[in-house]
């Protein structure tokens, strides 16, 4: 058993150095995008077919880690494109002054208007509480109903996770001045707060909680990949906060044309059709064939909530304060 494993490891080490003569486009993105199970491998293949270049991904943690990494590298970064920041991080990303304007007029299929000049969305989704139909027969219809119920939930920490931050802004956007009150009422529903999405979702699947903070699209994974229709997202009448994932071109890129070509490719059929069943999010531009079978079973929120990037950046510190105060009691 051991030798083949060693051999596989050595092979993998050896193949990383391959001679290059084509131009290299470096795309920095979050880790799960480049994983063997994410969109990365398929996107690389599809783009290299049309670009006569070598597309190289660099992975770094998640969206927030990506921004921290970019700040550390600054203008010396070898990356040409950064892909995977979300709308809540956009203002901070833009403030670094590292991004160039994209100059692309795109026809997007988002529930909200998009006119940012530096960043282009590649996918989006709604945050939602996901539950198991077998254990929760009568899901709450609002955050308030959830807080009033005896249901147990797992959420992610806003200080270490992007969905966690999303929930802060969701409550803030939906309840405004009532947010501190709502958090206090939610406190006894929260089983625990995890470092990231994976831990929270793992706890939920193991039955440690009735609901987990995730996305409206999460049940699609279970349905399409596992043939399991027991998972569902609860639709809340006050609306659902959106996560829009974006990409931008770095001003210091040494391959600006290739970077432009990649951004245009990102909004094309070839890229967008990969997204739904690898990243389990909605594509920013609807593919010709529509969404994969199974997505039609997902809930469609009555109202899409989202703060413009600047406002999201301004509100998050106060929202964090509220959250900490309510849950530290």
């Amino acid at each position, binding site marked *: 058993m051991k030798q083949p494993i060693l051999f596989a490891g050595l092979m993998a080490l050896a193949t990383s150095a391959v001679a290059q003569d084509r131009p290299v486009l470096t795309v920095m993105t979050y880790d799960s995008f480049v994983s063997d199970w994410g969109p990365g491998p398929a996107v690389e293949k599809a783009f290299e077919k049309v670009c006569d270049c070598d597309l190289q991904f660099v992975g770094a943690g998640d969206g927030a880690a990506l921004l921290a990494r970019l700040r550390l590298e600054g203008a010396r970064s070898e990356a040409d494109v950064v892909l995977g920041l979300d709308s809540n991080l956009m203002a901070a990303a833009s403030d670094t002054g590292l991004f160039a304007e994209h100059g692309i007029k795109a026809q997007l299929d988002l529930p909200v208007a998009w006119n940012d000049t530096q960043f282009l969305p590649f996918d989006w989704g709604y945050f939602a509480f996901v539950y198991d139909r077998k254990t929760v027969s009568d899901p709450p219809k609002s955050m308030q109903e959830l807080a009033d119920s005896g249901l147990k939930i797992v959420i992610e920490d806003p200080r270490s996770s992007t969905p966690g931050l999303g929930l802060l802004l969701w409550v803030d956007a939906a309840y405004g001045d009532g947010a501190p009150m709502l958090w206090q009422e939610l406190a006894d529903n929260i089983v625990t707060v995890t470092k990231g999405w994976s831990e929270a979702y793992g706890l939920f699947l193991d039955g440690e909680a009735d609901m987990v903070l995730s996305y409206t699209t999460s049940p699609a994974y279970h349905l399409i*990949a596992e043939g399991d229709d027991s998972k569902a997202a609860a639709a809340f009448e006050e609306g659902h906060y959106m996560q829009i994932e974006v990409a931008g071109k770095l001003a210091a890129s040494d391959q600006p044309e290739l970077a432009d070509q990649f951004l245009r490719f990102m909004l094309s059929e070839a890229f967008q059709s990969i997204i739904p069943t690898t990243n389990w999010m909605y594509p920013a531009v609807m593919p010709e064939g529509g969404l994969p079978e199974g997505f039609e079973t997902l809930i469609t929120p009555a109202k899409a909530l989202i703060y413009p990037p600047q406002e999201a950046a301004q509100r998050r510190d106060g929202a964090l304060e509220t*959250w900490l105060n309510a849950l530290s009691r």
Partner: protein
Amino acid sequence: MAERAQPVTRAWPGIGAAALVVALTLGSLAAVALRAESPGRFAAADWAALRFTLWQALLSALISVTLAVPVARGLARRRFAGRGLLISLLGAPFILPTIVAVLGLLAVFGRNGLISDVLGWFGLPPVQIYGLHGVVLAHVFFNLPLATRLILQAWLAIPSEQFRLAATLGFDARDVARVLERPMLRDVLPGAFMVIFVICITSFAVALALGGGPKATTIELAIYQAFRFEFDLGKAALLALVQFAICAAAALAMLRLRVPLAHTAGLDRPVQRWDAAGGRQRAADAVWIGLAGAFLLAPLSMIVLRGLPGLASLSAPVIAAAGRSVLVALGSTVLAVGLSLSMALAIETLRGRRLAGVLETVGYLAIAASPLVIGTGLFIVLFPMVDPTRLALPLTALVNAVMALPFALRILVPAVARTERQFGRLADSLALTGWPRLRHVLLPRLRRPLGFAAGLAAAMSMGDLGVIALFAAPGEATLPLQLYRLMATYRMEAAAGAALLLLGLSLGLFWLFDRGGRMNAAT
């Protein structure tokens, strides 16, 4: 021992090793601090985090060490089928990636776990695990085995002649405890307590998963927040410094508390215990070993059970990652053993001088280091010169080795001291110095501690996510990183399979080294 004049030059390799540790820990911290735009400031929330951190670490370390004493005593004086296997398995909780161990623990103690199920049959409500007690439970699960192993090691090092003499003098178990065992415990307990205390200070994923909310905020999480939420490098560096300061203070207190043994020499013969033959002692030992075994093995069994279905469908990327992890672990082991042995020898050479204390304290720094700070510091230093992603695997091996160093040192320093005490004079009188002394006197007697240290280093490296998460190139993932990627893409069953593979490989490496060290050793 002052008459045995040892030239300081012999301590140079150890001093060099210590310098490397300082560069990686304090150096990386300095790199982060220098990049900061403004100096960090301590906020009220950070004080709360500090209090919680210290409190839970204190409780966790106290309970782990207290419980470990009777378990180690039982293991030291009993022989039973499966004892060796049990001792090897004791290493397991410690080396598992946190997320795997936490899910294993919850399968037993969680709302939907075994214990809650049993309570449910009697109409009782499920266990409430989330909160301070959950954090402490998890930390005891991780560290009780480590404490047991450290204490067991010292127990087995009491020369058999002393028990023989005690039996001749008609000592009962209480006399043996007073004359032989308590002094040994005073020697080993402060060190074991201290190591676990510092581990618990820096482990934040456990606190976060089981703490039940922001009440359970640790300094490490505050560092995370400074990095990711605020991108305030000054604050991250300040918090990391506080973490170091706590660790250094604890290390100094430990050095002061510790009462080194003044044991006489023995002849390395197997230990036989005449004092512990009574039925009550047998029963007590059986109960302690049984309870500890159940507490540690039940969550492990759950990890195995839930991993089995996924094991059949392990994909090629996971196997390749496993291969990379084994290579990284082996490299890391060689480094860790080399560094720790040279430091242990230097500490022994310099014993009595202030420098020895400095070296020993430096050896502990690495546990207090935040992987996030080390990784970021390395990145800041390396980035202008070379693409850090190209060095991801060697860097991971190096950082993992330094992370394992405190544990290896904890094992080797007392062992080297003991050997020198017992055989140093004889070796001196034979004018054995340098390599021949190492080869003929020290190494044969250090086999068992070296094997244990190497096993621990290998297993820790296998299970550690380490710095690779910060700059792994695609296609260069290690097994723990691949496990997280599987989970991040909803593939929980495959992740459980990967976790089982990881558990198997870690334990396998640990067993190989540990067993190698114990071969031909009758005790």
